[in-house]
C-alpha cells in the first residue's frame, strides 16, 4: 500500500560511543575451561580469537553507561540536550540483579548521565535491539516528535558463554553459538540535521516469527546464569535464504544498485557467514567493491551492540572516510531481518585530552 510520507527531517548518526571491558579471553582459554572436553575449534569455525569479559563488578548497566558517556564525549550535545533515550539490550543486569524489568534500564541511564529533559523507554529485540531502537528513533525524528535521541545498549552476554562452558556435552550442542559472544556497550546519538553528506537513506525490518522458537535465551536450570539454546543448523539452512528476496524487494523499492556501497556491516556472528552475506549483497546489488566491516577476531559477537562497536572501532582507527556509504545487516532471534543504509559524515571519535588520559591511566 502506497502511503503519503511526511519527510521533513533527514536523520543522521551524529555521534557514537562504545566500551569494552579490559579482560581478554581467548577462544582457546574458553575451550580449555569446558567441563566436558570436546574436540571443537571455535577460532577455526568462527574466526573469533578473543572476546572481552566483564569484571565481577561490571554489569549490563555499567557497560551501557560507559558507552553513553563516550558517545556524549564525541557529540556536540550535552546530556540535558537529549530528547529521548532508548535502551535496547538483551541482558538487563544491574548490581546484584540478574534481570531488572522495572524501572526500565533507560531511566537508570537517564538518571546516571543527567539527561533530565529526556523521556525514555526500553526496546527488547534480541541482537536486533540497537538497530530496532535506531529505526524507532529515526521515525520519531522524521515525524518531528523529537529533535534528537540516544540509543544505548550494554551486553553482559558472556554469562551465556559461561553456561555453555559448564553445560555443553557434545560438539553439536544447542549452546555452541554461546561460545562466540563477548561483552560490550555501545551508544549512538541521532539528530535531524542530516544532508547529502551524512544521512540515513532507509531502514527496513521484517520478523519471520514462524521461526521464533528456534533460539531461546533464558535463565538456566542447570547452572546459575543465562543460557541460550539455538538450533543453529535450522536457522542457517531454513531461514537465512530469505535475505535474498528481501534484498531484491529493497533494491526495487529504493532504487539502489551498482556500486552504491563501500561497506557492508553485518551482525558479527562468524567470518564465513559474514562473507556469504557480503557475496549475496555483491551479487544482488551488483556491487563489486563492497568490503566487510568486522572486528569479530577481537571482540566476538557482542549481541545487540555488535554493529556499533565495530563502527566505533573503525572510526577510531580512521579507517572509514567521510562520505562512505554503509549497509547494515542484522539477522537475529525472532527471526529478525533488518537493513539500514546510511552515508557517514562528520562522525568522529575525539582524541582524549591530556587530563582525560591521565585520569584513565590513574584509574587503571
Amino acid at each position: 500500500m502506497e502511503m503519503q510520507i511526511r519527510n521533513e527531517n533527514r536523520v543522521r548518526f551524529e555521534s557514537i560511543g562504545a566500551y569494552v571491558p579490559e579482560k581478554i579471553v581467548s577462544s582457546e582459554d574458553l575451550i580449555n575451561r569446558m567441563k566436558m572436553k570436546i574436540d571443537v575449534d571455535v577460532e577455526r569455525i568462527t574466526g573469533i580469537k578473543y572476546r572481552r569479559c566483564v569484571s565481577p563488578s561490571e554489569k549490563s548497566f555499567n557497560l551501557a553507561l560507559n558507552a553513553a558517556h563516550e558517545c556524549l564525549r564525541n557529540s556536540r550535545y550535552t546530556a540535558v540536550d537529549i530528547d529521548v533515550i532508548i535502551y535496547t539490550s538483551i541482558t538487563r543486569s544491574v548490581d546484584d540483579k540478574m534481570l531488572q524489568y522495572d524501572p526500565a534500564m533507560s531511566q537508570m541511564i537517564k538518571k546516571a548521565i543527567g539527561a533530565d529533559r529526556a523521556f525514555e523507554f526500553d526496546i527488547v529485540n534480541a541482537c536486533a535491539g540497537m538497530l530496532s531502537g535506531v529505526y524507532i528513533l529515526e521515525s520519531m525524528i522524521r515525524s518531528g516528535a523529537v529533535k534528537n535521541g540516544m540509543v544505548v545498549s550494554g551486553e553482559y552476554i558472556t554469562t551465556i558463554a559461561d553456561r555453555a562452558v559448564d553445560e555443553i556435552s557434545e560438539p553439536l550442542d544447542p549452546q555452541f553459538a554461546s561460545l562466540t559472544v563477548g561483552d560490550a556497550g555501545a551508544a549512538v546519538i541521532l539528530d535531524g540535521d542530516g544532508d547529502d553528506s551524512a544521512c540515513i537513506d532507509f531502514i527496513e525490518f521484517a520478523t519471520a516469527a514462524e521461526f521464533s522458537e528456534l533460539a531461546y535465551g533464558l535463565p538456566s536450570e542447570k547452572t546459575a546464569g543465562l543460557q541460550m539454546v539455538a538450533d543453529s543448523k535450522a536457522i542457517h539452512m531454513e531461514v537465512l535464504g530469505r535475505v535474498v528476496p528481501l534484498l531484491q524487494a529493497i533494491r526495487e523499492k529504493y532504487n539502489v544498485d551498482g556500486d552504491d556501497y563501500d561497506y557492508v556491516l553485518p551482525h558479527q556472528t562468524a567470518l564465513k557467514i559474514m562473507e556469504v552475506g557480503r557475496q549475496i549483497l555483491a551479487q544482488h546489488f551488483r556491487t563489486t567493491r563492497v568490503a566487510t566491516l568486522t572486528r569479530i577476531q577481537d571482540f566476538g559477537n557482542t549481541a545487540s551492540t555488535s554493529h556499533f562497536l565495530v563502527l566505533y572501532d573503525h572510526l577510531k582507527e580512521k579507517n572509514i572516510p567521510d562520505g562512505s556509504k554503509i549497509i547494515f545487516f542484522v539477522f537475529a532471534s525472532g527471526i529478525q531481518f533488518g537493513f539500514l543504509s546510511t552515508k557517514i559524515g562528520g562522525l568522529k571519535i575525539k582524541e582524549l585530552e591530556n587530563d582525560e588520559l591521565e585520569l584513565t591511566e590513574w584509574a587503571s
Partner: protein
Amino acid sequence: MGIVIKSSAICVDPESNSAVELAARAGEECMANSGLRREEVDLLIFTGVFRDDNIVEPAIAALVQKRMGLNTDPVSDGNVIGTTFSFDLIKGRCGFLYAAKVAQGMIENGRAAHALIVSSDVHPSCKYHPEFPITHSGAAALLSRTENGRGFQKIIFNSTTDSYTGEIVYVGENEGTKARKAITIEREKDYILRAGDLARKTAKKYVQGESVNPRNVKLLITTPHGKSWEKDLSRSLGMNHYTKSVNIYKKYGDTYSSALIFGYFHAVRDEKLKEQDEVLFVAAGAGLSSACCRYIV
C-alpha cells in the same frame, strides 16, 4: 493525521497462565473486533513486564506474532508477500502510552498502517501463585491512522531524575538455578503516595499545557494502584463533578502493563463513550515514571 484505537480486547482466564498465550488471545479477539485481516498488521509491539520463564530472547512479541499468525513468514516461493515487524517495549505500567508514541511515529512516516499493541503479565513460573500481587491478564489495542483529528492527541511523559524508584521488579542473582521461575517485587512504603503525586503533577501539567477543559473530559482512565486511586486523581484535577472514571482495580486487581487498555475496553463495552467524547489517560509506575494523553473518541 493522527492515530486512533480501532478496536481493543482483554483476556483473563484462570486456566491461562502464559504471557504469550494471554497476549495472543487478547490480540486475536482485538483483530476479530477490528474488521481487518491479520495480514494488515504491519507493526506488533508487546509491552508486558512479567513474562514466561523470564525469557530474554526472542522478543515476546515474536512469539505472540507466531501464535496469532501475523505474516509469520515474509517470504513465500522466493517472493516477499507481506511483513510484520515485532518487538518488545518495556516501560512498566506506562508502556501502552510509550508504545502509542512509537506507533504514532511509525504510522505518520508511512512505515506502518496498523499497529497492534499487546500486553500481558504473569508469574514467570506460568502458574498461579497466591502471593503474586499481579493479576494474570492480557490486553490488546489496534491502532490505525485517521485524518479526522480524533484519537491520540499529544502524549507527554514525565519521569523522575532522583535516585528514588518506588518499586523495583527484578530477578536476583541469588536465585541461582531457580531464576527461570523467580521474580521479586520490592515496594517502598510511600510508593503509592509518591506515584500518585507524580501522576497528579503530570496530569495537571497536561491539562494546563494543552488547554484541556476538565468539564469536557468525559472519562479518566488510569493505572490504578488501589481502590480509590482514580477517584483521588479525578478529584485533585477538579474533574469529579463532570468526569466519570473506570475502576479496573475493584474488578480485576493489579493488571500492571494492561491496565489502561482494560479501562478503555470496559468503557467502550459498557457504552460509556460516544463519538467525540474526550478521554484522559494517566499512567504512573516505578521509576518513578508517568505519562498522560488526551484521547478523542
